[in-house]
């Protein structure tokens, strides 16, 4: 590869998931992130109780993300061949974990808005 531009990266992701699925996922990710900021700003605080549930969801998110990528690319754990593969795998897992934590936290906040003094 001669050069890696932002446009190429976008094109690559469109190719991986298909244009429709990719942009749907981007839209979902943006929506969830915005909702996350919305509840943070609304509540002016992070609820540690909700964050605990969010943390508990992280391992599941990590595993699901890895399985998703492997399904999409006809591959499995047995194909991990070197250090860089482990890094890529961990990167996918971390993305899945962080994504699920944000998602779970946001869902809880939207469904059960905290009232002052009850969320610690």
């Amino acid at each position: 590869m001669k050069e890696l531009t932002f446009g190429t990266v976008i094109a690559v992701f469109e190719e991986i998931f298909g244009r429709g699925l990719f942009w749907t996922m981007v839209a979902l990710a943006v929506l969830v992130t915005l909702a996350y900021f919305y509840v943070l700003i609304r509540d002016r605080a992070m609820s540690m109780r909700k964050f605990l549930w969010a943390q508990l969801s992280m391992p599941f998110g990590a595993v699901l993300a890895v399985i998703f990528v492997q399904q999409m690319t006809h591959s499995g754990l047995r194909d991990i061949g070197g250090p860089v593969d482990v890094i890529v795998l961990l990167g996918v897992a971390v993305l899945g974990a962080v994504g699920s934590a944000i998602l779970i936290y946001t869902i809880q906040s939207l469904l059960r808005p905290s009232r002052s003094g009850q969320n610690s």
Partner: protein
Amino acid sequence: MTGRNDFRPSRRGVLGFALAGAVTAGLGVRAAQAARVATKARIIIIGAGAGGTALANRLVQRLDGAQITLIDPRAQHLYQPGLSLVAAGLKPADYVVSKTTDWLPSGVTLIAEAAAAIDPVAKTVSTEKGQKLDYDFLIVAPGLVLDHGAIQGFSLDMVGKDGIGALYAGPDYAAKTWQAASKFTEEGGVGLFTRPATEMKCAGAPLKHTFLLDDIASRGGAKGKYEMHYTCPQTALFSVPIVAEKVRMLFGERGVATYYGHTLKSIDPGRKTAQFETAAPDPATGEMVKSTTEMPYDYLHVIPPQHAPEVIRQSGLSWADKWTDQGWVECDMKTLRHLRYPEIFALGDVAGVPKGKTAASVKWQVPVIEDHLIASLQGREGTEVYDGYTSCPLITRVGRAMLVEFDYHNNLVPSFPGVIAPLEELWISWLMKEVALKATYNAMLRGRA
């Protein structure tokens, strides 16, 4: 009040963070293009494949007022690097197919006819329906011809039946190849893999097909009851020695038997045998001794001899003293400029250079031709040089590949040194082949990569 551990974002903090993110994302956007060159030049590109299309897009971006004409009768554009995946059942046939016109910029003319003759002295190209076009610059990028007729007893209508595959022949034949190959991976038997004695497109593809079928068979119904036999006319498995050695070791590990000096000449589909011309050094004198041999198969993969299209060979553009049986265009290996006709460039498969019949090579050849062509328009010398860059994500099984990149000098030229090792079987290299390559290819076609 909230507890001490709680994180309390402010509106301003959140907005500032969001702004920083947006600025970072925008960094990838490139600054405005260099000024366009005004010209009235008539530029003809024969062939709207990977090379012709990519160059047309780049020239349109760089030139103002040029008359750019592409000549190609093919309505379909093929993403040929995907054929290996189709022939292993990993992608459908339509994965590699798009329309030629989908990729062409506005401002170029496409003549959907075959070029019938080139007169490099009068600087004209004639089409099959009798149009005659003058040019100031000509880029020959028609691809190559697969000479299936050269294998006696073989014809394309056999592909997919009775254990015969031929994935080079196109998307439908690649899909049919998988029909025959999948039967082999379920039932087992003898798998026989070949490659031609001529120069060929992507010399890694015969190896990939072998590796993929071995992997699928080893996990499928054929497990424990199949044999893999790889034949080649050459004396090595790959033209780059360090890669050849690595593949030799992998074949050894996987139990793929290798037969050097074997050129497929004919097949007998009724008896399921293939006949080879063999060449081996005489143990006493060291001289090469030719002979013939016959090998049985349950699955046979045919890759025919390949040569330049007839229109190139008839027009006197080919080398007179090299590849005389194949007719590749005589050109400077670093600038791709014709050695006798400086207004002609050869691009892609048809170029008579020692390496580079891959889409990855085209990606590196296109900017070189663009540079020298525009330099000529401006009355100066171009500076870009093509050094034989070729890339081959050499699949070694479903889920792993080696990202092999090399040049004319048989040096490895890794794009990601220290990160992606070229001779290591890696998942990330497979991800690149399976998902990132087509996107990069498409970006190249549009002149964006």
